[in-house]
């Protein structure tokens, strides 16, 4: 048995089979079970390692050959597999609370498997093709039954599709640069193409217009799932590029550009978030700012620290987005809108969802004692050492995100008439949102728990990890 068969082909097949299951709850439970099993297997028996059970000796080979190319998941990808399928299980289990399991779980599992395949394919450049396949399979997940496809969905498809050709061309040109780094003209051409490709893929300013549009028109839970997966894999794909090309890795202007782009995304995302009157749009701009933070982390001169910050943010981010999206879907189901004006005072009828929404948001933007706080704090400090103006802009962006969160809080609790406090959420919604909030506090109060697990992440990269 090879690792790609287990962590790519099996979930692809399982996702296809889940489409045939008739009941929402069965799909949610089965999807969660598959995802948890894959995460547990990756934790217990990583590729290329041997485990003994009595007289039996188990080993999973890392490489599968497909049409003369290698698809390989090695032991260094173990933590990514654990994290991705673990986070997937959390999102799939959450469909019990948010609904739409028959749409989100099967396609979610298939999309996750394709994104894992994008990490495994060699040469890594072909990941662009697999990411494009995942984008196409996300469309049925994002489209709302009975609704016309909106502009956000169409732009998502266009922008993500356009990324692929640019990246493949840049990869071809860069292979020439690898042989003769003296060719400055070729480097500039390749850098321009690569920049355009990743600008589309990561939805860099101003190409992120589809994110708030999509958050307005699609189910918040589906959008949250997609927006927690795609930027993560796109960023890892980008880091693979940096790891593979020394001229990129060692180029001071590159890290400067990365920092500038990261700040631009953070600042624009933060400022726009402060002025939104739609919960979905606040959510979208916060995600834009989060991508900016990841870029900032990757731009730190201390690469080890930068990579650890980059990877440490993944788990709290996924958890916070999950709790936030789950809570929003509770409001959307009841009120059919996420416009703040329509949700005034709704915290009195849905207090657990309101708490989940506010804590999910605050955990993501760095509320002290919550999940993202330690790493955001460390990142801000490092940034201040590098450049004081950059640290000031980081503060401005954080302020914007805080204002967006506080406006949502004020609107949700501001009841004009005296409505009694009653929890109208279903028990699954209360339990899952409650557990999520506990998890967010646990990750913030005991950040060192994740340290041994996350310390291995940089090993994924041959040069950056050293």
């Amino acid at each position, binding site marked *: 048995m090879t690792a790609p068969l287990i962590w790519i082909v099996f979930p692809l097949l399982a996702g296809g089979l889940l*489409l045939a299951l008739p009941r*929402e709850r069965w799909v949610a439970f089965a999807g969660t079970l598959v995802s948890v099993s894959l995460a547990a297997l990756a934790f217990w028996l990583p590729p290329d390692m041997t485990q003994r059970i009595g007289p039996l000796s188990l080993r999973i080979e890392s490489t599968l050959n*497909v*049409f*003369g*190319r290698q698809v390989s998941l090695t032991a260094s990808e173990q933590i990514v597999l654990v994290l991705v399928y673990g986070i997937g299980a959390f999102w799939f289990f959450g469909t019990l609370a948010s609904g*739409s399991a*028959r*749409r989100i779980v*099967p396609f979610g599992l298939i999309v996750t498997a394709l994104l894992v395949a994008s990490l495994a394919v060699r040469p890594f450049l*072909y990941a662009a*093709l*697999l990411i*494009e*396949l995942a984008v*196409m*399979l996300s*469309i*049925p997940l994002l*489209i709302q*039954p*009975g*609704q*016309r*496809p909106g*502009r956000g*969905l*169409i732009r998502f*498809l*266009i922008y993500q*599709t*356009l990324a*692929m*050709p640019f990246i*493949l*061309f840049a990869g*071809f*040109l860069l292979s020439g640069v690898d042989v003769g780094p003296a060719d400055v003209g*070729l480097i500039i*051409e390749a850098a321009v193409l690569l920049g355009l490709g990743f600008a589309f893929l990561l939805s860099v300013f101003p190409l992120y217009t589809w994110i708030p549009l999509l958050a307005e028109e699609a189910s918040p839970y589906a959008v949250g799932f997609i927006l927690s997966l795609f930027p993560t894999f796109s960023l890892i794909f980008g880091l693979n590029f940096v790891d593979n090309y020394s001229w990129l890795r060692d180029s001071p202007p590159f890290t400067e550009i990365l920092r500038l782009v990261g700040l631009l995304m953070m600042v624009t995302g933060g400022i726009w978030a402060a002025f939104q009157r739609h919960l979905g749009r606040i959510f979208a701009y916060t995600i834009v700012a989060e991508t900016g933070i990841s870029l900032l982390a990757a731009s730190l001169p201390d690469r080890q620290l930068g990579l650890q910050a980059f990877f440490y943010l993944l788990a709290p981010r996924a958890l916070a987005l999950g709790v936030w999206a789950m809570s929003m879907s509770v409001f959307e189901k009841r009120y059919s809108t996420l416009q703040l004006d329509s949700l005034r005072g709704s915290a009195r009828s849905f207090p657990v969802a309101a708490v989940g929404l506010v804590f999910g948001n605050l955990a993501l933007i760095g509320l002290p004692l919550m999940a993202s706080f330690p790493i955001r704090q460390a990142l801000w400090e490092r940034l201040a050492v590098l450049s004081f103006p950059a640290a000031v802009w980081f503060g401005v962006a954080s302020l914007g995100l805080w204002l967006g969160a506080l406006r949502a809080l004020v609107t949700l609790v501001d009841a004009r008439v005296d409505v009694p406090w009653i929890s109208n959420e279903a028990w699954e919604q209360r339990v899952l949102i409650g557990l999520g909030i506990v998890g967010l506090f646990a990750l913030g109060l005991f950040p060192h728990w994740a340290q041994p697990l996350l310390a291995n992440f940089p090993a994924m990269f041959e040069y950056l990890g050293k």
Partner: protein
Amino acid sequence: MPDFVLWLAAVLLAVTSVGLLLSRDWRWTLGLLGGQYFAAFWLILARWPLTLSAATLVTSWMAVAVLGMTQLSIKNERLSETSWPSGALFRAFAAGLVLITVTSSAQPANKWLPSAGLPLVWGGFLLIGMGLLHLGMTVHPLRITVGLLTTLAGFEILYSSLENSILVTGLLAIITLGLALTGSYLVLFDAPEAPESAPE
């Protein structure tokens, strides 16, 4: 393959891609798209073996067939939309601008891709330019799909001179077919009687 044969294919690409931009009837649109894929196959044949090129052509035609069957199943006869500029003259003018830009940029770009040759570079750039023009002028799912397929066909022509791996060809074919299926899905949801019974 002699250069003039390749130029013939490139000219056919120009005719079909401009026709795609001007046509309003979906039957003409899909017919022209099929013709465009044939011309692209002709160009790709200069760099790839027949079997690999033919596989690309067959997949592309399957994509056209998928879009055609979807259009047959809905009642939209014409692709009219409010955001589409009303005059065919405007679209022809925009296509002319793309043609001029592509012609002026193909020669220098040929230096990056010396293995491709000028007809392939010109044809590839033309389809990418026309596809992007298409994408910028519409919000209709069928036209968006045609625009994306045109852009990708242009990219495939250029990429054929760089890469002939079976895996990449297969993945590109799956992407072409996948885009057509995605486009069909969006067209069905965009139709006045959008499906209510999609998987929930």
